[in-house]
């Protein structure tokens, strides 16, 4: 097991280096000079002196590969640089934004599992029943529905017509009232994906020989499903949680923008719009590291939980 973990981490090193090169160099494809953009006065004039000073201060006058090495070195020391706009450390911005995104993701994740697990199981047990068909049609719709559209529809229904919930905003540090609509918006898509996965995993478990054996022994259907099938069907839930995490992280870009939720998704969109390069790089590195770590943890725990996989590799 430890060998496996070490191997996985070693494999990650070249990939992460490549990720860092991409994150660093991506912004140099962009037209427009950040120094000039940021030193443009309200009258639209650029002051060449302040542009020079800015370049000097931010190290933008050095050759590219030197800039990359300096950036990578700082990165390894946990220093993501300073936001061009606010002049505050990028890491501080990211920390604050991550808190908001994390809160939203956790609520959405619980919401999506609370919807998907029961529906997925019932659909599998009552395969091809009207209930199953309804659930799966609903799942198809949920997968295909643009989350920005769903968000706006919920806003229209609950925020404007029924006037029950605030239309947007973070409220008092992301309180319940403000989190409900963005969490439903984010959670619906992942609930649809999850329900399908749980249904097929449950169907697979129900088709196994040990289920037939249990039934042949005369075990009651309740025990067959609850004890034998369900236990095996829920193993992939770990993977599903990991998959969901990527889904939620990606969804946060749009959902946070619609609902004015001050998380990582909105931070990166705002930073792109004002070409705050340090912030864009910082966000990319942070989000990717997060994503890679979650996937690693999912892989490891999956092997740990499912003895079949563990023994296969040990033997």
């Amino acid at each position, binding site marked *: 097991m430890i060998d496996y973990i070490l191997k996985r981490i070693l494999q990650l090193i*070249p*990939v*992460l280096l*490549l*990720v860092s090169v*991409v994150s660093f160099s*991506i*912004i140099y*494809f*962009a*037209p427009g000079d950040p120094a000039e953009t940021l030193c443009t006065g309200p009258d639209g004039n650029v002051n060449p002196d302040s542009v020079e000073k800015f370049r000097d201060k931010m190290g933008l006058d050095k050759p590219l590969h030197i800039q990359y090495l300096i950036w990578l070195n700082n990165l390894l020391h946990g220093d993501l640089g300073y936001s061009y706009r606010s002049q505050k450390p990028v890491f501080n911005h990211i920390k604050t934004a991550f808190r908001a995104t994390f809160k939203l993701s956790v609520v959405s994740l619980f919401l999506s599992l609370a919807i998907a697990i029961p529906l997925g199981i019932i659909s599998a047990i009552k*395969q*091809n029943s009207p209930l199953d068909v309804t659930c799966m049609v609903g799942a*198809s*719709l949920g*997968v*295909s*529905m*643009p*989350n*920005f*559209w769903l968000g*706006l*529809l919920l*806003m*229209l229904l609950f925020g*404007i017509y029924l006037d029950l919930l605030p239309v947007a905003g973070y409220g008092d540090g992301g309180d319940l009232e403000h989190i409900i609509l963005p969490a439903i918006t984010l959670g619906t898509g992942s609930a649809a994906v999850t329900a399908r996965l749980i249904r*097929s995993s449950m*169907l*697979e478990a129900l*088709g196994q020989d040990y289920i037939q054996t249990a039934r042949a022994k005369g075990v009651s259907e309740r025990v067959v499903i609850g004890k034998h099938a369900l236990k095996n069907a829920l193993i992939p839930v770990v993977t599903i949680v990991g998959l969901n995490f*990527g889904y939620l*992280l*990606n*969804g946060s*870009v*749009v959902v946070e*923008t619609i609902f004015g939720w001050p998380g990582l*998704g909105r931070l*990166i*969109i705002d930073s*792109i*719009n004002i*070409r705050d390069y340090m912030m*864009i790089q910082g*966000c*990319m590195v942070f*989000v*990717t590291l997060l*994503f*890679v770590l979650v996937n690693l943890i999912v892989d490891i725990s999956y092997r740990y939980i499912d003895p079949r996989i563990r023994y296969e590799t040990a033997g």
Partner: protein
Amino acid sequence: MKPQDSGFMHLVTRLEESRSATIGATIILLICLSAVFAPQLSPNSPTKACLADRLISPFTEQKYPLGTDHLGRCILSRLLYGARISLAIGIVVVGISATVGIVLGVVAGYRGGLIDTTIMRFVDATLSFPSIFLAVVIAGLLGRGLASVAIALIAIEWTSYARVARGSVLSLKEQGFVESARSLGARDSYIMTRHILPNIVAPVIVMATLGMAYVILSAAALSFLGFGSQPPTAEWGAMLNAGRVYIRTEPHLTILPGLAIMIAVLAFNLLGDGLRDILDPRQIDQNGNSA
């Protein structure tokens, strides 16, 4: 085992086996027809503003069946022309990604060694980024416009084709018919195009169909965020973004373009899922449709 067995025509003839595939294919056909015949079907110009007719609700005036937007442009016409943009960007992105991905994947799998390692490291690195974050950064920094969106989505999409192509090649490489071809003295390029490629057509068709759904949805999302098509182009995501300002008074500006996106995405998802069921015998077993 003839390569045509899992080929394109075979799939088409078996399409009716799956209800979802049939429904999906029908809707896609309708969308394609409305895109092609948009000039004939549209009651008005999709881009001509007429401020006197601004913000008309749907089903109230015969001249504008689905109402008008904040600049007095006909919503129905814009939706019909919008189908062109969504389909075009889907076809371009999926076409280029599949070609690039398959070529790199087949080469990586067939050659192995350093070429394989290099290509697959790039795939791994690309897959390490949460896709939408990477897409908004690329699209946002390249400058606004549909070309930037297409480049951003290609940069993400090619990886899945490369992976599948490489995986299939690795398993095919060891099979009898490839070995016989090689022992008969066939060149690598001949084996790759005549023996390997026909055998990965089927999974690629499924991926490309589901990929169309993903690309249409993502392109609309990027346009919605302001990175994609620019005014006055009629694009569904951009229409939704412009319309949401009027959500309180004119909700149809938000509802209709979103509905169009969802129907298009749903159609490709249904077709893709249906095709996968047809191609994957294991899944058919589970559903009890076939022994």
